């Protein structure tokens, strides 16, 4: 395993701790923590971003999904040292001010969230999909969400939500493409 020394030069070590710098939801953050601390725990405990959930702790359920440098990761499997310099997006970074993100709006209207515990991770997986593929087929939606378990919905309404969000996003894009661009730039 890597130690803090292997990570690029900016952090320093003190008592088994390392200072990690990264961007979370557009904000520069620095945390001094054990370098092998899970990104999930850093988000929840050190940054108090508790929207990201733990379901299994072994990368099976996807509840802890966040976007890191444009990739979808299970934050329970990422030692925070790997996040040095990274751009991270969590569920707290989706909405802009008072306005729900189109995915959040769609999940609300289509019944895509029931108990809500898988929802933050599910939203991140859906956001990842739409960022890369704005007009996914149903098969692509199913594949993109296959790493995120939902025990409540049977997934039907989650699929509908993603379809609705894709439609809404492309409608928005047609009207005001610059807004959409800033949105994904985070």
């Amino acid at each position, binding site marked *: 395993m890597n130690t803090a020394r292997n990570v690029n030069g900016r952090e320093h070590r003190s008592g088994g701790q390392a200072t990690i710098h990264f961007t979370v939801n557009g904000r520069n953050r620095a945390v001094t923590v054990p370098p092998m601390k899970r990104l999930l725990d850093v988000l929840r405990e050190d940054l108090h971003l*508790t929207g990201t959930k733990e379901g299994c*702790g072994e990368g099976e359920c996807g509840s802890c999904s966040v976007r890191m440098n444009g990739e979808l990761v299970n934050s329970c499997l990422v030692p925070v040292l790997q996040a040095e310099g990274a751009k991270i997006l969590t569920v707290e970074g989706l909405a802009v001010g008072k306005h729900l993100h189109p995915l959040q709006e769609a999940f609300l209207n289509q019944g895509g*969230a029931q108990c809500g515990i898988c929802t933050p991770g599910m939203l991140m997986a859906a956001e990842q999909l739409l960022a890369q593929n704005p007009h996914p087929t149903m098969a692509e*939606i199913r594949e993109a969400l296959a790493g995120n378990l939902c*025990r409540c919905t049977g997934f039907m309404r989650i699929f509908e939500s993603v379809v609705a969000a894709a439609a809404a996003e492309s409608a928005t894009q047609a009207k005001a493409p610059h807004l959409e661009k800033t949105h994904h730039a985070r």
Partner: protein
Amino acid sequence: MEKCLTTRIVGASVPRKEGADKLLGRACYVDDMEREGMWFGATVRSAIPRGIIRSIAFDRHIDWSEFTVVTARDIPGENHIHLIMTDQPCLADGKVNHCEEPILLLAHPDKHKLRKAVAAVHIEYELLPPVFSIEESERQDVIVWGADNLLKSYLLEKGDVDSAFSRAAHLVEGEYRTGPQEHLYIENQGIIAEYSAERGVTVWGSLQCPYYVFKSLRAVFDLPEEKVRVIQTETGGAFGGKEDFPSNVACHAALLAMKCGHPVKVVYDRIEDLAATTKRHPSRTRHRTALDKEGKLLAMEIDLATDGGAYATLSSTVLSRATLHASGPYLCPNVRIRSRSWATNNVPYGAFRGFGAPQAVFAMERHMDEIAAVLNMDPVELRRRNFLHEGDTNATEQLMREPVILDQLLDRALTESDYSARRRRFAQENSGSTIKRGMGISAFYHGSGFTGAGEVYLNSLAGVDVTHDGHVRVLVSNTEFGQGTNTILTQIAAEALGIEYSDAAMAAPDTGTVPNSGPTVASRTGMVVGRLIERAGLQLLALLREHAGLGASHTRDEFFAACARYRAAHGELVSLCRYEAPPDVHWDDEKYHGEAYGAYAWAVQVAQVAVDTVTYSAEVEEFWTVQEVGRVLHPILAAGQIEGGVAQGIGYALYEKVVMQDGRMANNQMTNYIMPTAEDVPPIHVYFEQIPFRYGGFGAKGIGELPHDGPAPAILNAIRDAIGIGFNSIPLLPEDLYAGLVSNQPAEEPVLP
């Protein structure tokens, strides 16, 4: 038929009440909460299924002075988890009866120090012989519970079964088995507890039934009502798994909090949650059925057994519901059902969506297809000839007073699924293909609310109040855990009061605030509690009309103006209603005779399944479910309930296997306990027929459990249709299909319509 459907808010798909919080990541689940000075708790559990605890030693490499240690001796009140019986200890005292039984509790300010500490508690046991199966338990060679291992038994008799068998044209027997099923709520069990001598015990947690936890805490701490407070936090799925189990976690966290003097959080990780918490009861059901030459049911003899695990928990009531659903939605003049729940040294089984009905319905509906094969009859036609209708009586001789539209549900299911044409097409295509497709059906009902006199006994109290700042609050102890309680109850309140949906909110689910409106179980929230809220709303309007000058019809503003006048003159504005049983409801709990349930929800489901004869996998390709659940209060939430239940039912049939080894779950990880994913769940087509039920909240009957009852038999019936082999046991994994395909001659040819 669709009467009284003119409502503004009920029946509309308004936004989920707490939806925005969940979508923004703001909803506060127990693990998102912290309390000042909070410590963390962990549980030391039994490593063996049954034995005497000989010694407990603490490893010297750990500085135990940093830890708080709790044993049974620290319990100030009674050492049991309050439920139907008092056999389950809060902490084992001298002996253990199942693996993972809690023996000792640890707390520390640093949660990362707990794992090592748990492993550093060394317990020596004297092993006693364990019992792991229904068969071992019923042999009674080893007695592990009570005098005879029997947790509960029922005998239900209608007509004269024995003489009916002597006149039968056909006699069909079968044995059906179901395995344990894990709830797999994505949020694990968790509780935060605080204790002070002055205020007693306060707990926050992920739970379904605040008053169950309340009663358990009172017993364990020997405290009066005013010194126990239970607050539900946002709950990330439950499905029955947070009906009774959270009482254990709450008592443990509170004992630690009392002893260490700090708030204590106990949150299980997935491995502990899967190993130590309840699952669906495994079952074995034997059917012996007499029919006349037209295929009409003459007599049914049913012997049903469940494995209850090491303690009684809810096994008696699960068995009751299994018994009452065992003979299906069919008219049969002679019925005898014997049912027994047996104690073993498995982890206690508990409540899970359907509560015994999925086990019983699996057996009945698989058996119907085996009967059809023996009679050389289309399974659809066999069901149609035997359906209950309005005016008939079921096995408990409950008169079907409300409309029963099984024929209509069946017709719609057949039409929507294009059942007959697909079956014919598959029969042709299958012969030339390694993929064999088939269509399967299930028909069933599910009783809404508590069984028999259960709702009378619960004596639920619920209502609404209007706060000084002009907000209407729904006062119930019923909880939201995804199914939509917050939304439907505020819809009902707003509708009844003639105000807007946004004017009504839920009071916090806090036993210090809300009355006991009963547990959130048994598909009772919409029907029973919803009706209480509807009545409380109408009662509040009557109060305002009499004492605050509210007109016979009113606007929203007039309503709140009247509320302000009432409050100015009289103070608090509260309207509570207590449960009243519908008239003419009689239940004999000794003979299991009479009105078993206030109402039944009905469904017909159809599965299209493809069996790959090369890989031995079975895949559900499409699923149709048609149901009558009374009034649909919220179309999107209702469809979501059905789809989610069907997905769990598909998992129950084809994916979810709890591998038990010597009383311990061997596959207690999400890596190897497999539930259906987004790629496994087929398109699920949901159709409602609505017949408002006069005693339900704006016409609602139960909905939540119904959809889980039918998928497993429909899927296995479809497999029988596809490959001609009737499998009688679930879960049916590829290795089971392989075993069946290589060893079985195909059963009787499936009959085409």
